[in-house]
């Protein structure tokens, strides 16, 4: 097997503010092969955005700092190279699109300029050539009449169109990895599906790997090969998407799946929410982060952090009771 395109090992990122330490990312590891797609899911504050920002080395210091781990991309450890070298990779080999295209695009520059500036920077093309490439990308993402609209400003586009522009901008240098941080959250429901389809199509056409960040497991399930679940700054479960659905091995994942409204089955039942409050990231990460809310929690969970154990190839979970989860879960359900 060829080495993975991206190999994150034991990533640790902390934030320092007002004397407090926030453990945003604790010992996160995962890998991704070329052309593969994965999702990182979790609630707000789980550390998923910080994780990918750490990969991109876009963590601002102050207040944040990547404190440990390695991030191997195309063979080199991104955490070890210089900032100049990292800049050559950002926007070029690894691209990122963000949640809100209105605020993520510079309102006073034309989209053409915003696209050509990175094309010229990374590919060394002349302005004329860069514009042609930009126009090509815009039509690739399905924007009508790109040569007329290339000098327009972001406010002249609709939400969905803006996201397409962002995608075109991100892909214009032909990256091998695309990170999509909640790309559809700010869009209308009808548009969301279009964007997801677009990204998926482009992924296959261009053969790049994609990391999807989302708090909506259901949305990304149909699109990715594997899923990583994060909670409280920890990676709590990782599995191929089908295996995750069929056999969740972490109580949080179980809770997420149960919370998904189902159209068939017990439609008349109430939504099953997960009780409790989100974790306090200022606490030392030496116990299971989910224990306070976990209905299966034991004393052991509150005393020590469970290690990441592999239950099957490509299936990892961080729970003392991951092996017995399917039994105790059914028992609880039936009761």
């Amino acid at each position, binding site marked *: 097997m060829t080495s993975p395109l991206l190999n994150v090992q034991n990533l640790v990122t902390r934030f320092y503010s007002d004397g407090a330490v926030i453990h945003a990312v604790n010992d996160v590891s995962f890998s991704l092969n070329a052309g593969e797609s994965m999702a990182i899911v979790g609630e707000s504050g789980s550390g998923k955005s910080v994780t990918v920002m750490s990969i991109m080395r876009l963590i601002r210091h102050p207040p944040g700092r990547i404190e440990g781990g390695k991030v191997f991309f195309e063979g080199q450890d991104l955490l070890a190279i210089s900032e100049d070298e990292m*800049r050559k990779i950002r*926007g070029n080999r690894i*691209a990122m699109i963000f949640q809100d295209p209105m*605020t993520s695009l*510079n309102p006073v*520059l*034309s989209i053409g300029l915003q696209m050509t500036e990175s094309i010229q*920077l990374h590919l060394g093309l002349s302005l004329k050539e860069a514009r042609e490439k930009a126009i090509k990308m815009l039509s690739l993402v399905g924007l009508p009449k790109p040569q007329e609209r290339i000098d327009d*400003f972001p406010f002249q586009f609709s939400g969905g169109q803006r996201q397409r522009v962002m995608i075109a901008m991100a892909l214009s240098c032909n990256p091998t990895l695309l990170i999509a941080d909640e790309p559809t959250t700010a869009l209308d429901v009808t548009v969301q599906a279009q964007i997801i389809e677009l990204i998926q199509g482009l992924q296959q056409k261009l053969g790049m790997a994609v990391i999807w960040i989302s708090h909506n497991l259901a949305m990304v399930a149909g699109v990715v090969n594997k899923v990583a679940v994060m909670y409280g700054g920890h990676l709590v479960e990782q599995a191929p998407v089908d295996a995750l659905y069929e056999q969740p091995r972490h109580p949080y994942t179980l809770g997420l799946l149960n919370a998904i409204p189902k159209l068939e089955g017990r439609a008349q039942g109430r939504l099953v929410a997960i009780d409790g409050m989100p974790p306090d990231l200022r606490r030392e990460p030496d116990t299971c982060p989910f224990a306070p809310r976990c209905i299966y929690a034991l004393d052991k969970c509150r005393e020590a952090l469970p290690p990441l154990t592999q239950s099957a190839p490509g299936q990892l979970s961080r729970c003392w009771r991951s092996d017995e989860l399917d039994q105790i879960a059914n028992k609880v359900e039936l009761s």
Partner: protein
Amino acid sequence: MFNYILRRLLVSIPILIGITVIVFFIASQMPGDAVLAMISTDTPQAEDLVKLRRGQLGLDLPIYEQYGRWVGQLLHGNLGFSFQSGESVISVIAARLPATLELMGVALIIAIILGVFLGVVSALKQYSWLDYSFTFFGFAGISIPDFFLGMVLVYVFSIELGLLPSSGISTAGNAFSLSDNLRHLILPAFALGLARTASFMRYTRASVLEVMNNDYVRTARAKGLGERLVTTRHILRNALIPVVTVIGITLPTLFGGAVIIEVIFQWAGIGLMFINAVTGRDSPVIMGYVLLSAVIVLASNLITDIMYSVLDPRIRYD
């Protein structure tokens, strides 16, 4: 855009009329008048003289008639004649306007360059000792009155250290030389510009801080752009837009401040002319100054608004 400019120009006319009417009325209510300021009542037969002179100057007419005469003259391109010196107001102003423009211009340039630069540095290095000291300087600059600063500068640099002249535009009687003029310009331009510097600095800092944390800055970095490009094209290009507006709004205060500074430094510009005219109740000169400054303020407001729309494509006038 053309329609917009036209509309603005048309709206300016009633504004100017209103300003001139109000100022004319207020000025006429000042106790004493131009003639009494020139002739003391100790002089024997002062009463006849006063009457005679007032008749000559048209001060015995009712106010609205005096205003009407002034407007009539204005429409013929004539601003009248100074009560004090007899010269035509236009030549009185024209002789002194360049000095004021020089002073205001240099002060504004100093304020913009220094203010924006310090504000940007302060914001980019937020919470550093640099930021704290610049912020302190900003507060001090806004709090210290222009005239006080002017007097302190004269005291330190002119009287105590003897480095720079204490007043005037140039060394009296010498042929004009640029370096001599600049030496006289330094202190007043700084006194006038420093307060503005502090204000621009605060606005720039606030604006840059706000823009710095915007998502599109993150996007720019994510595209791999270098810090310099991120700072100039993405941060400053957005952050400086409101600063342009602030600069435009500051112009009237620059006018007012110029009056004070010109008096302290005996800078022979229209501000000094205005103060002398007020003291001497020289109504034609007062009105000429008011009209001129009103026009300049309105023009600068219009230009600022136009610039705003040029810089920010989201702003479009129709």
